[in-house]
């Protein structure tokens, strides 16, 4: 068919008036030039999958991820896994507070937050639009034990913070709940820093198992304005003698915490 049809076509062109056949010739030439140029200009992968350059897709997919994910960090920092993954902050990935992976240990360590108040209030500052289930503080009203250098981490473990609940990794003697005496109302403030069971937390010493005399003596000292802890002095001044006596009885009744585990 090919050549015959072409010959017929040429015959037909020949029969046309010259000005028409020349015009057709010009159009044909233009088409040839356009198509040849087009084949040079358009990427070979264009139209492979649609009206776009298919090679662009693997190019976009090739970039290296910057955020490595907590699983990657835990690979080396295994000791963090125990407290972080068990606490309320298990949903907060390492890189949220420490910044992107910089290639530690070769290229230096990940960022250690300098200003924990600024960092923590990003999520925990009381704000009208924040949902109620989010733990929030009003900064101006929040007590900071160390007024000179206020820090969230003085009381809260950033890797596994607690508001009032017990840190699960804390070594505490397990006691059946019904054998415990009811905590006095004043204890609601103690447990914020000393743990729910008075087991002590971070820099705050354990209260559980402390003898009633020792407890009363210490509290009276604080009440008189003596001692290192300004927070304790401030707090003790709000307590009556009856409160102190009740607290002393309560903490004496609690079992003393197990000894600290050896440092990592």
């Amino acid at each position, binding site marked *: 068919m090919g050549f015959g049809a*072409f010959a017929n076509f*040429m015959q037909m*062109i020949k029969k046309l008036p010259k000005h028409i056949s020349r015009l*057709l*010739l010009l159009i*044909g*030439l233009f*088409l*040839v030039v356009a*198509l*040849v140029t*087009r*084949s040079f200009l358009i*990427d070979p992968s*264009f*139209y*492979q*999958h*649609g*009206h*776009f*350059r*298919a090679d*662009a*897709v*693997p190019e*976009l*997919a*090739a*970039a*290296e*991820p*910057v*955020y490595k*994910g907590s699983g990657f960090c835990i690979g080396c920092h295994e000791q963090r896994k125990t407290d972080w993954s068990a606490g309320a902050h298990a*949903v*907060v*990935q390492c*890189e*949220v507070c420490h910044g*992107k992976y910089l290639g530690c240990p070769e290229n230096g360590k990940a960022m250690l937050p300098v200003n924990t108040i*600024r960092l923590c209030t*990003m*999520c925990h*500052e*009381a*704000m*009208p*639009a*924040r*949902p109620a289930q*989010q733990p929030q503080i*009003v900064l101006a009203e929040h007590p900071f034990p160390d007024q000179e250098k206020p820090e969230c981490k003085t009381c809260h473990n950033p890797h596994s913070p607690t508001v009032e609940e017990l840190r699960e990794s804390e070594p505490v003697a397990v006691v059946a709940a019904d054998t415990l005496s009811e905590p006095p109302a004043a204890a609601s403030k103690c447990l914020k820093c000393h743990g729910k069971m008075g087991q002590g937390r971070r820099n705050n010493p354990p209260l559980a198992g402390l003898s009633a005399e020792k407890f009363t003596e210490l509290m009276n000292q604080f009440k008189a304005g003596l001692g290192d802890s300004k927070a304790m002095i401030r707090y003790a001044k709000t307590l009556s003698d009856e409160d102190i006596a009740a607290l002393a009885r309560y903490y004496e009744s609690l079992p003393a915490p197990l000894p600290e585990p050896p440092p990592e």
Partner: protein
Amino acid sequence: MNGQGDINRRVELKKDKKRTQRREFLCNTSKALAGLGVAAGTGSLLANSPEKKADKAAMAAKAASFPTKDYDWTKHRWAYGIDTTKCIGCLRCVKACKVENNVVGDANHFRTWVERYVYLEGEDHAHVDSHADSQNIAAAGPGAEYRFDNRYKDEKVNRAFFVPKMCNHCERPACVQVCPVGATFRAEDGTVLIDHDYCIGCRYCVQACPYGARFFIEEEGVSDKCTWCYHRITKGLNPACVEVCPTGTRVFGDLNDPESPVSKLIKDNRVQVLKPESGNAPMCFYVGLDKDVS
């Protein structure tokens, strides 16, 4: 008489062999060229015919999965979920997106952002601001640790909430329709991507997007937007914003997988999309959208 002479002269001329040859040569050559051209033209048109395309697709499938050897885009149908009732406005997603995708560092270029809607008592319209609001930028400080300032803390707030926003990766994207050069397209896995090499910077897409999800990079002369971290999702990771979200507001997943977080979100909640009337069929599904959010 004169007429007869003319005819004679013409006959003479026709007999002039040299002249006839040249004329014929030119005529034939041009015809041949035209013929070749038509043949070449049909050939190159045929190159894009459906059969050829099918052949290529079959070959590609046989050779390896596309776009990478570990990732086959025909097997996924990505979608994004945003539960606005959980968002605390910490803006870690915004920060992570900037870092992950090396987005231009100033306060006007964002692939994702968060808006705050506040209704004060006695008012029936919302006060809306985002991280890019000048007061919030000032609160962010020099380290660009994006945060919302606490400007409503002393006001009587009736209700307020945060709404994260981003490219909706629409099923029928207006931005793709208006692109004159095929620089933006919808991949088979449902992501709407931009080919920066082909983008001519005409900014039609920036104007076409009903969600304001696209922006222009002045330095490079190309438009840009969220890709759902295409380099991450093709490696089995979550987009960076989902990775860092501490509240589970943002979820991502494959609609082909009924157990994926986004499939579950859609199954367990009544979801909405932004501006459904625009006809773009967005693939970001919202939970808890308010009537004034658009």
